Structure formats: C-alpha cells, structure tokens
C-alpha cells in the first residue's frame, strides 16, 4: 500500500476512535446538568434519591468518556502536521484560527472546570459547582461548534481567496457559516443526543436484566426513551435537509451514496448493490423505482447527476454507498426501538419491572447503536469528500507527508492495537459498573465522607449544603 492510503487510514483510525467519546460527552454533559437540577428541585428525600443516584453513576461514565476524548484529542493536534503537512500550508489561515479558538475557548473551559465538577463538591458552593457542571457541558458544545465549522468549511468552502498558493480569508462570517455548517452542526448534535439516549436506555436495561438496578434505573430509562423518541424524527428531517444541501453543493457525494453512475431522471433507490469502481457499474442491484429521485428532489422524475460526470473527481463508491445504508438502517432501528419502547413502557405505567425481558434485551443490544450510526455517517461525509481534502480547492494527494510508508504502517499498527484494546476496556468497564451499580453508588457516598481529593474520579455530591 502507498503512503497516502496508509496516512489516510491512520488519520481515519484516530478520528474514528476520537469521535466516539465527544459524541457521548457533548450530550451527556447536558443530561447530567438535568439530573443535577432534578435532584436539587425534588421536594422529598425519596424523590431526590433516584436523581442523586443517576447523577453519581452517570458522572462516572462521563469522566471515563471525557478522559478518552482528551487523550485521543491530543493525538489529533499532532497528526495534522505529521500526516497532512501541506494542509496547514495551504489553508492554515482558515483552519488555524478555527482550531485555535476551539482550544482556547472550549478545551480549556472543559478541562479546567472538570476538576471542580468531579472533585470540587463540598469545596465550593452549590452554585459554583452547578456553574462548573454547566461550563463543562457548554465547553463540549462550543468545541463541537468550532470543529464542525472547520469540517463544514472543508466540505463547502466559502469566504476565501487564493494568493500565492495559499488561501486567505475575505469574510469570517462566510467561512464559519458556510453553506453546509448549520445542517452538519444540527445533525451532529442530534447524533450525540441520540447516542447518549441509547446509552442511557441500554445500560439501564442491563441493570434491570442483571438485577443490579437501583431506584434510578426506571427514571433514567424513561429519560433515555423520551429523548430518543423525540429526537429521532427530528434527526430524520435534519438528515433529509442535509442531504438536499449536499445534492446542491457536492452532487458527486450523493451519486456515490446512491450508487448512480449515469445521470438519470427518476433514479431508483437501491436497497442492495455492490458498486464496482473498476467496471463503473453496480452488481446485484435490488431497487425501488424512482424513490431516490423522489427523496432527493422531492419529485418522482427529478434528475440526479451520475458519477460519470465527475470522472476523476468522485469518491470511492463502495464504502460511501454502504456506510450510508448502515447509518440509515441503524437510524430506522432507533426509531422503531424508541417508539415501541416508549409506548410499551407507558402502558406499564412506567413500572420497569413489568417490562418484557425480550424488550430489555433489545434495549441492551442497542446500547452502542449511536456509535455505529455516527461513525457510519462520518464515513459517508468524509470519504464522500475525496479525492479532495478541501472540496474543489485542495486535493488530498497535494498535502500528504513524505514520511516513509513502513513507518506509517508501524505506527498505524501501534495505534490500532491500543485503540482496539481501549474500546474493549471501555465497554467492559461500563458493563462492570452497570452490574455493580449499588457498589458504584455506595462507593461514591463513602468517598463523599472522607477521601483524599481526587482519589477517585467520582461524582462528589453532597446532601449537606454548606
């Protein structure tokens, strides 16, 4: 394999691993704020207890996810230079300030206040602690804002001019609020919300199945199901709008997603196919007539441009085509699960112990469905941008590093090994925590009484106000 492919695989491995954890921490920060608020406003100790437990348990999940996000984020800041040295030379004037603002405004806000959020309860006033929790949640969202501004600019660049081989900004408003930015930001924030919702649903179901559920589990399950049931239809609408936006600005990406080779009116929706880049055709097609045109143009005989119009400037079709189907498929599963689950749960009068076992197993199976859909969606949009690194302006081949292929292969193997092990460890620890919920929460309560600061990365929540 050549160095370019290896460099891309390495970058993809890193960014794939990284995005798993911000996807959780962006929305989980706000959900924690919600738990904390419910606990504060609840009237009686009995009413407070579930929210206190939920806050304690989920803060641990948050701390773990956040730590993994931070360390893999550090890798990202290095790999821009090691893998794509030409990227910053060509578009550094745009990417630089956006990344700089992300670090300055968001990264420090999160990392600085996380210490107080995790270890500071009792050392600071209730209000300061609540504010720290808010700043952490706000910081993660602000971070997403800057990163998605840059990513969207790379997809639909605007507001720049070329001077002496590098790009200079003519309008920052045009750069940040580039054509695809609002859609992509909304799509990603909703993806984060859904990922978290299914994590709440899945782990709560696991607690109920394993008999480790505390008073908090039924409440958390209800919160998760409600968020999911409300967010998934919104996500489908936003996804559709995002698709229309892509059709306007990046028609070759849409052509790859739909496996359309020749420009046609009334294009069919392919349910199954094996696109073949060499033969420039699809094998084993199963299709619904005219549906792709209808979805994308909202007209049965709307025109969709084919890949053959973009001979050497379209992405590899197979991965984009299938990643798109995986994303949509998981999304539909989420819709079915959350609506069915919410309806059945409501029929029991929110009595979790009366839920059928098979439904709980379905919930548990869907625990990490958000990760699958999110990663598949990112593959669609990022592979779909190829062969450009900045769509229409800079090709990926022009910015690659000259590091030798074997060296990249070696470090790639190192990263993949470490990341695979860490994902296994992360999932195993979440499972372990869900099975020992009582102990996890009790530990937190004991720590609260007398532990050295920071001995345990725990939610330090005190019932006694100072």
């Amino acid at each position, binding site marked *: 394999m050549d160095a370019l492919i290896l460099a891309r695989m390495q970058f993809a491995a890193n960014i794939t691993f990284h995005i798993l954890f911000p996807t959780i921490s962006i929305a989980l920060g706000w959900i924690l704020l919600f738990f904390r608020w419910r606990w504060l406003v609840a009237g009686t100790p009995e009413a407070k207890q579930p929210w206190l437990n939920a806050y304690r348990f989920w803060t641990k999940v948050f701390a*773990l996810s956040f730590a993994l996000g931070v360390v893999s984020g550090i890798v990202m800041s290095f790999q821009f*230079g090691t893998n794509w040295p030409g990227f910053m030379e060509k578009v550094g004037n745009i990417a630089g300030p956006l990344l700089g603002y992300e670090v300055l*405004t968001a990264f420090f806000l999160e990392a600085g206040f996380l210490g107080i959020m995790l270890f500071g309860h*009792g050392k600071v006033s209730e209000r300061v602690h609540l504010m720290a929790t808010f700043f952490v949640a706000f910081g993660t969202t602000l971070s997403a804002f800057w990163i998605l501004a840059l990513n969207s600019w790379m997809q639909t660049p605007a507001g720049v001019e070329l001077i002496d081989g590098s790009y200079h900004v003519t309008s920052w408003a045009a750069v940040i609020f580039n054509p695809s930015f609002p859609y992509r930001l909304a799509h990603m924030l909703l993806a984060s919300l859904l990922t978290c919702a299914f994590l709440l649903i899945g782990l709560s179901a696991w607690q109920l199945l394993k008999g480790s559920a505390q008073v908090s589990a039924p409440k958390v399950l209800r919160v998760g199901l409600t968020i999911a049931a409300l967010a998934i239809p919104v996500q489908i609408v936003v996804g559709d709008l995002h698709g229309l936006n892509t059709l306007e600005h990046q028609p070759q990406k849409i052509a790859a997603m739909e496996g359309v080779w020749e420009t046609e009116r009334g294009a069919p929706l392919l349910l199954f196919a094996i696109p073949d880049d060499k033969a420039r055709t699809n094998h084993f097609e199963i299709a619904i007539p005219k549906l792709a045109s209808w979805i994308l143009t909202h007209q049965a005989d709307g025109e969709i441009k084919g890949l053959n119009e973009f001979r050497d400037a379209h992405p590899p079709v197979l991965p984009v085509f299938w990643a798109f189907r995986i994303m949509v498929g998981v999304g539909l599963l989420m819709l079915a699960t959350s609506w069915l689950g919410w309806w059945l749960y409501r029929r029991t009068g929110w009595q979790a112990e009366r839920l059928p076992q098979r439904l709980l197993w379905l919930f548990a199976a869907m625990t990490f469905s958000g990760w699958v859909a999110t990663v598949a969606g990112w593959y669609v949009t990022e592979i779909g941008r190829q062969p450009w690194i900045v769509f229409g302006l800079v090709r990926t081949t022009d910015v690659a*590093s000259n*590091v030798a292929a074997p060296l990249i292969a070696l470090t790639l193997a190192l990263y993949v090994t470490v990341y695979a092990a*860490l994902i296994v460890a992360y999932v195993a620890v979440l499972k372990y925590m869900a099975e020992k919920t009582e102990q996890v929460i009790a530990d937190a309560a004991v720590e609260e009484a007398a532990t050295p600061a*920071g001995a345990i990365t725990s939610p330090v929540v*005190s019932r006694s106000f100072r």
Partner: protein
Amino acid sequence: MNVMSFDTALPVIFMALMGLSMLVYVVSDGYDLGVGMLMHRASPEEKDVLIASIGPFWDANETWLVLGIGILLVAFPKAHGLVLGELYLPVTLMLIGLILRGVAFDFRVKAKATQKATWDRLFFAGSMLASVSQGWMLGRYVSGFGEGWNYPLFAAAIALALPMAYVLLGACWLVMKTEGELQQRAARWARIAWAPMVGGLILISMATPWISATVRERWFTLPEVIALVAIPLTTAALLLAVRVLLTKRLVLASVSWLPFVLLIGVFVLGFLGLAYSIYPYVVIDRLTLWQAASSPAALKVILIGVCISVPAIAAYTVFSYRVFRGKTGELKYA
C-alpha cells in the same frame, strides 16, 4: 533603533505565547508525569494518595500541550510540518504513553479490583514512555535534527535526563502535597533524582554550544557573556538550595512548598536560556519564525481570541489550584 512594525512583531508574540505554553506544560505535566514514574515505589495505599494529589489537575495540565502544539500548528504551519515530520516516531510513542496514562488514571478506580494493579503498571509505563520520548524530542529539536553519531547520542542523554527532572519535580510536588512517612520518602526520592537531573542540565548546557555554532556565538561573545552568566549562576544557586533543603527537617513542615517553587525557577531559567539560544529561529539554523509564520491577517484573528481567553484560562487555573490547595490527605469532601 528601529522599531518592528506590528505585522513583523506578530510572529514574535506568538513565539512567546508558544514558549509560555510549552513552559507551563513542562512544569505542570512534568510534576504529574514525575508522580506517575514514582508509582512503582509506592505501596497500594500510597498509590491512591499519589493519584489523588494530581487528580484534579492532570487534564488541564495536558491541555497546555495541545495549546503549545496548537500555536505551532496555527501560527507556524511550516515549522509544524517540519518538526513533527522529523520527530514522527517519538511523537507517536509519546502520544501512546500519554493515552495509556490518561486512561489508566480513570480505569484504575472503575475496573475490577483484580485489574487495578495492571492499570497502575500501565500508568507507570505510560508516564515513563511519554517522558523519555519528550526528552528525546527535546534533544533532537535543540540540536536542529543534525545527522551524525554525536547527535543521537546527545538526544539519548536528554531522553534520560528529562525524566529525571520530572521525577525530581514530582517528588517535590509530593513533599508539598503529602505528609508523614510518604512525605519523608518523597524527599528521599527527590534527593536520588537530583544528581542525574543536574548532570543532564550541565550536559545540555555544554553540548548545545558545541553542536551549534549559532548558539556558541550567541553565548560566548563579549560583552554579552558577562550579563548572561547570571542565568547559569542563578540556576546553580537554586539547584544547590533545593539539594540542601531536601536534607533539612524544615522541609517536612513549614516550607514544604519551597523546593517545588525553587525548581519551577530552575525550569524558567532553563527555558529562558533555551529561548535565547534559539531566537529568532523556530527550527535552529533552518527556519526563522518569520519564514514559518501564517499570514498577519490570520494571526491577528487568533490574537484577539488569545487576549480574551488566556487571562480567563489563567484565572480559572489559579482558582482550581486554590480550591484544591493544602495537603492531599487533609482534603475532605463536604
């Protein structure tokens, strides 16, 4: 005397900011990496205290590295590519070290009790790997990525010396943050790390002028040499004071913070010396900071953000250290 125009001064401002970030990183992550490398010497109960002493800080400490590398990336893109291309493998190893220790930190208390020892070992190994890699990178960077037998040897020496400096810093941090038997042992660890750290510092000071003609001229010409001699002299005085303090009973009581603070002074002076050697290069003898800088327009946009956020970052960093001040063992929740 000619005054620089604002556009010409911008890269200098960013160089100073980058230097400041890297200095804060080296000192702050330095002590927590040092504590990490002392893990294997501690008993299981002491391990919890060690971790506790750095718990609230390490996340923010590592963020300074992201800021430093971030400024290199956004303000000096050409240098970012050159430096990180040269340091490709050690950068990877450092990152893997940082990943392992960062996650071990969180996993050790959440995993099954039987796996805790494994995560502790990973925490130690990650801290060591990151520190050694950083030492190697510093050695390679200071010597301008030179080829030949002497350059890698020099880098290898720094790769051993920098971890020792971190261990010394970490041990002094523990002298400040702990008490009782652990504090006494931390003082002993600090005394052990002192000699190799000083040796490394002498080596780097001798070898840098030997390896680079630019540095030699800068330091050993009259009359500058008379003014400059203050830097090594003050450094030597501070280091001797640390060594003497570490043997006194006093350090276990009222002035337990003093060795740590004096050591920060050593790091600051070392940094100033290094900055004086390198300026105005980003990569010594190869790339000046003006050659490597982004356009003034882009730098101005970033500068606005810097002016607003850096004071805020400084403020809440100070706030966080105030909240978690005092001995780790004494700190209680609620």
